[in-house]
């Protein structure tokens, strides 16, 4: 039994091992390793410029890596077998705007080597999956933003790939279309497709992703389920968010004394016991700060991201 066969049998659909990619002096991807199993959705979160796009393009086989390897269903990324096993939905709308939905799908289907009845069936399946059957003869550029996004997704599904990479598929999409896109992705995942999903929306990652990897400065800085990430980062501690009316310097000095940090007029702390809040507020009063709002909450994925990267998810 070969290693790749063993891997597939064990359910690993995509594997990145020690991947390094440099652009001149910049190391865009710095020793990243991760795996995605069949029927699993891995969320890839990271600030802009963290290396997500380079990592995704490496999985597609569009990057010459400096070291490490990427395999899709046991085959080297970029090989014909890997391409045929992989579907890629780029962030930009990569469809032909002047032809119809059906013609777009026909074109991409032929690029994947489909023809005849197989191609017709694939187009029919994609139109149904993307809920575009009624719009199949409409020219792509006349579609709404959400429909264009769905067509963009469908164009990567014609060959029914075993691994699909979604690069921020809901950018600029209205809530109704976003919901439809979630259903499409969930249907794929439930059918056993391995999915890598990059997003800037925490709620999307929490809803769709079985595991989440946070990437920053080209490295995976945390990986696990939503709960695992919160647990690893904050343990049993809770978050206190206190908003004050006062000078920023005074707020920062006060927060600094108690191990917190300030963003705008809001100071953020983590505590283990609710009883820790009263001494904090006493000290704030002594510092001349007037409390406007106080929130106690269980940390979430956004908190984890902010804590680990120092930036908001949407920055």
């Amino acid at each position: 039994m070969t290693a790749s066969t063993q891997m597939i049998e064990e359910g690993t659909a995509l594997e990145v091992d020690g991947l390094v990619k440099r652009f001149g002096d910049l190391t865009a991807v710095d020793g990243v390793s991760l795996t995605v199993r069949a029927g699993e959705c891995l969320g890839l979160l990271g600030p802009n410029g963290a290396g997500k796009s380079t990592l995704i393009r490496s999985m597609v086989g569009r990057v010459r890596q400096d070291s490490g390897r990427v395999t899709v269903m046991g085959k080297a990324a970029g090989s014909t077998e890997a391409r045929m096993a992989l579907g890629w939905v780029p962030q930009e709308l990569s469809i032909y705007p002047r032809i119809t939905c059906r013609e777009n799908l026909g074109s991409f289907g032929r690029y994947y080597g489909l023809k005849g009845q197989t191609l017709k069936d694939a187009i029919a399946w994609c139109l149904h999956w993307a809920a575009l059957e009624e719009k199949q003869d409409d020219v792509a550029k006349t579609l709404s933003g959400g429909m264009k996004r769905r067509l963009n997704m469908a164009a990567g599904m014609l060959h029914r790939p075993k691994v699909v990479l979604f690069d921020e598929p809901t950018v600029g999409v209205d809530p109704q279309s976003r919901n439809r896109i979630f259903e499409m992705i969930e249907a794929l995942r439930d059918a056993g497709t391995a999915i890598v999903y990059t997003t800037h929306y925490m709620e999307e990652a929490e809803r769709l992703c079985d595991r989440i990897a946070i990437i920053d400065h080209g490295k995976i800085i945390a990986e696990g389920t939503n709960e695992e990430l919160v647990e690893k980062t904050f343990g049993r501690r809770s978050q206190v968010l206190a908003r004050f009316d006062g000078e920023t310097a005074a707020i920062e000095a006060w927060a600094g004394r108690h191990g917190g940090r300030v963003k705008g007029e809001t100071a953020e702390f983590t505590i283990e016991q609710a009883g820790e809040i009263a001494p904090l507020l006493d000290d704030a009063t002594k510092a001349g700060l007037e409390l406007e709002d106080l929130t106690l909450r269980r940390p979430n994925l956004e908190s984890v991201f902010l804590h680990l990267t120092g930036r908001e998810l949407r920055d």
Partner: protein
Amino acid sequence: MIALKRDRGALVLSFVLPLAFFSIFAVIFGRQGGGTPTVKLIVVDQDQSQASAALVKGLQSESSLVVMMKPEAKSKSAPAPADYTAATAEAAVKAGDAPVALIIPAGFGQHPIAFGPDAGGSTLELLNDQSDTIAPQIVVGLLQKAAITSMPSAMADEGMKYADKYVGGFTPAQKAKVDEELDALRKAEADGKTGAGSGDSGNGNSGNGSAGAGIVAVNVRAVVGENKKSPMISFYAAAIGVMFLMFTASGSAGALLDEAESGTLERVLSTRVTMTKLLAGKLVFNTGLAFVQLTAMFLWGWSAFKLDFFSHLPGFAVMGLCTAFAVAAFGMLLASACQTRAQLGALSTLVILIMSSVGGSMFPRFLMPESMQKAGLLTINAWAIDGFTKVFWRDLPVTDLWPQVAVLLGVGVVLFLIARRVARRWEFS
């Protein structure tokens, strides 16, 4: 102003293109000093008399003529080819080696010139290619000049005959004296002591080309295009066709840039399609498109201008496909070398218009200076037009197209390989 500064393509078009065109047309027309262009003239001297030799010598001294008595040797080591005969001269005109050939018939020396159409002088034969209407006129004019300046004895002899006939006749003593002077003149002519003109025929004077006009009777006979109804239609169908083919091909190849810009190209390259397959596919499509466009052009020439299209179908198919292939590859190279559509628009306009002007799409190459004619061989236009001319004008068989076919196919392959190399920038990062 800021927009113009940032749009380098527009900037190039605004300044470089007019300068390039000015230079090209200045070279084509400016160096001729307003005079006649140089004409290649094949001469066959069947008479081999003193008069015919003097006439040939007179023609050779004309700076506007390049007189060829024999074909050029194929190589320096090859044996010198034999002089042209009437048959080989006609074949050479048909093959486009020279636009005119002069046949000096046997017996010319007996009665070389005549003062008037009914005087019974010898008639020279001028074989010409109808596509060049200027060359025979120049040659006829220079023939009259050469006859006057190079054959004084014949002139005097003919003059004496007229004097004898119309003035009342010479006395035996006068006749003896005239004969003595004519012998001296013939001797001086044979020794080369009589003038053959200054050789400056740059004033553009030319004969009217009609048979029997002037002191040397000339019968002009078209050996190429004599049955053509519209002499230049096939030339312009090819010339204009190739130029617009190039614009179409570069525009069509520009789809590659649209795909690169929109991200579709990267997506396509993530499928089973490789860059080589993609470019080859586009090359095939663009070749087909160019061929259809060329066919439409010639069909229009047939329906509107009576171009004899259907009797030249095999030659058209061969030349059309080879031209379409070369032009499509040319478009691919331009598109892959540019970053944006705007750049492609500027570069293709510049390159195509320059190639078209030098390559003969705007102005026939045979009317250009020798150096420009040679420079034209660096363009696709020149080879394509030459090939179509062989088919539609000279009625040559398909096998005679091999130089044009070889060059166009070779150019197409080389341009495509370069385009493929340049397109590597889209492949990986």
